[in-house]
């Protein structure tokens, strides 16, 4: 229902879009391609990448290696489990909070949103170190539990904000109408508020799930040796093991899985969310 816009002229369009295009080509697409290429090369004598003299030097060794050891599958599975669990806990914790902010008087809402994003004002690592001090005395440090706590803590605002943005736009008349037509509070929530908030839940979930998959700082600082995730694995290949092809192959696998998941979600929400666009 957006009003028709006048299209900018060709030249304006070029001038405006050129700087970000150059930036993205140079600093996003090129490195990404280098990573893709690195996945098909051999490890150098002292780590990193072996010098390349012909196409014959390209190899699928890194991927063969990945497929050859079940430990990688395990780590991928564990990472997805941690990401899914973190996302679920974030939804459960963020929903009432976002709902309360959206229902509070207009004059207070901005302040409450500010409180939600206030933790970003201090350094992320410092805040994770603070958890070490909190969990240590309780003997919970270096456990899967500590990893989940840290993940949820770090990503909660990314769930609260899109949910709040969605819930704040709900027309209160819809709930009155539902009540008027015979729905009690429970039914009003599940039949009106919840389905209309699905777009908010989806965008919040994407903002939590994907970063958690690649996160290495939290498991490294709060998790035990058995709690490493894909992020740690990739970082290890590049920095400690100096096995760049394997690190690249892992990165590519992760990217493909995330893209597949995002595509699936987009497809599912397009089918299942008909009509909810009207409120978001």
């Amino acid at each position, binding site marked *: 229902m957006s009003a028709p816009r006048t299209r900018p002229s060709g030249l304006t369009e070029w001038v405006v879009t050129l700087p970000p295009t150059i930036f993205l080509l140079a600093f996003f697409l090129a490195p990404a391609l280098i990573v893709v290429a690195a996945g098909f090369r051999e490890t150098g004598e002292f780590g990193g990448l072996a010098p390349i003299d012909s196409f014959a030097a390209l190899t699928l060794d890194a991927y063969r290696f990945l497929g050859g050891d079940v430990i990688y599958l395990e780590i991928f599975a564990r990472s997805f489990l941690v990401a899914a669990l973190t996302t679920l806990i974030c939804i459960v914790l963020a929903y009432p909070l976002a709902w309360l902010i959206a229902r509070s008087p207009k004059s207070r809402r901005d302040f409450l949103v500010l409180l939600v994003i206030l933790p970003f004002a201090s350094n992320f690592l410092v805040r994770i170190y603070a958890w070490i001090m909190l969990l240590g005395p309780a003997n919970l440090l270096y456990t899967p539990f500590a990893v989940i706590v840290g993940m949820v803590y770090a990503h909660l605002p990314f769930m609260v904000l899109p949910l709040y943005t969605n819930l704040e736009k709900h027309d209160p008349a819809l709930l009155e109408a539902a009540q*008027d037509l015979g729905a009690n509070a429970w039914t009003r929530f599940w039949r009106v508020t919840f389905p209309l908030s699905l777009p908010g839940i989806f965008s919040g979930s994407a903002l939590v799930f994907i970063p958690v998959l690649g996160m290495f700082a939290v498991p490294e600082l709060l998790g035990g040796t058995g709690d490493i995730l894909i992020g740690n694995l990739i970082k290890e290949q590049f920095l400690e093991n100096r096995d760049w092809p394997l690190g690249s192959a892992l990165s590519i696998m992760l990217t493909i899985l995330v893209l597949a998941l995002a595509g699936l979600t987009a497809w599912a929400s397009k089918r299942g969310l008909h009509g909810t666009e009207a409120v978001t």
Partner: protein
Amino acid sequence: MALLEIRNVTRRFGTLEAVKDVSIAIEPGEFFTLLGPSGCGKTTILRMIAGFDEPDEGEILLDGKSLAGVPPERRPLHTVFQSYALFPHMTVAGNIAFPLEMAGRSHDEIRQRVSETLALVHLEEKADSFPHELSGGQKQRVALARGLVNKPRLLLLDEPLGALDAKLRVEMQIELIALQREVGITFIFVTHSQQEALALSHRIAVMKDGRVEQCDEPDQLYTQPANRFVADFIGKINLLDVEVKSSSKVLLGLHAAGLGDIAATDPRPIAVGERGVFALRPELIRVFGHRESADLKNRFEGVVRELLYLGDVTLYKVELANGRVIEALMPNAAPGRAKFHEVGDAVTVCWRHDAGVYLRS
């Protein structure tokens, strides 16, 4: 027994009294309208009937039983909201099925009632559309269907035609009357449009500042307004300040300062010397040229200052000897004549002695 009885209801918001000691009884099958300017308390009354608000004093009874403390979802009445409040994530059929599902009806019954109601509002082919795919008039009809489908004891309508354009509004008015007659459900309609109220209602309560000024049938409100506010709010009217000169049985002699004596009728015993207002509808005034004669008691000289040609009728603004301008509406029914007088013409305005109403202040 009245279907719904509002008994001495008062509602305060802080220091503001939004509804002041209102009593109304609504009969089964009635099309009842609460009419008044914005802020007169009509919507507050509707919300108290629906259960979204509770009276501070007095009570509301449905079938003789008090509704106090009964939440909106347990009241056997539905509301059509001004904004329609259709559920955007449900189809038209889904919206209409909602109250039936809440009432725990069976699948078969729901399917049948939804299709019956869709037919009632002529939207059979839109059953699977979503609200954002509908026009304003269609949304309106879905909202009506959703309110009617579970056959409530009462349907409350909160300015439901306010968001429609003028032409569509008239069409919907006609549909609404037919619909109410067909389903036989009692309607309580809230509007600020006197035209809408007159066209639709069996009875109208005219409200001002939280009070009911007059509650009557449309033609009674129009011809026998109870006071200056009602006279002025409903239709066009001329109001002249007058003093009572004589009163005998039904004849009333009035005097308007600077103008002269006015002959009127009023069955009430009225004291000589009382001051009030004489209210006269523009369409009951005749405007004649000086050469034309009229055998009417109330005749006053004047000059046409402005006229508004409306095709079927012309509105003349005539300045009288005392400087007062009165409005007269004359049908342009004579063949071949566009209008009868021009600006600047000296004319005589006259009216029958029973044309106007004397209002005590």
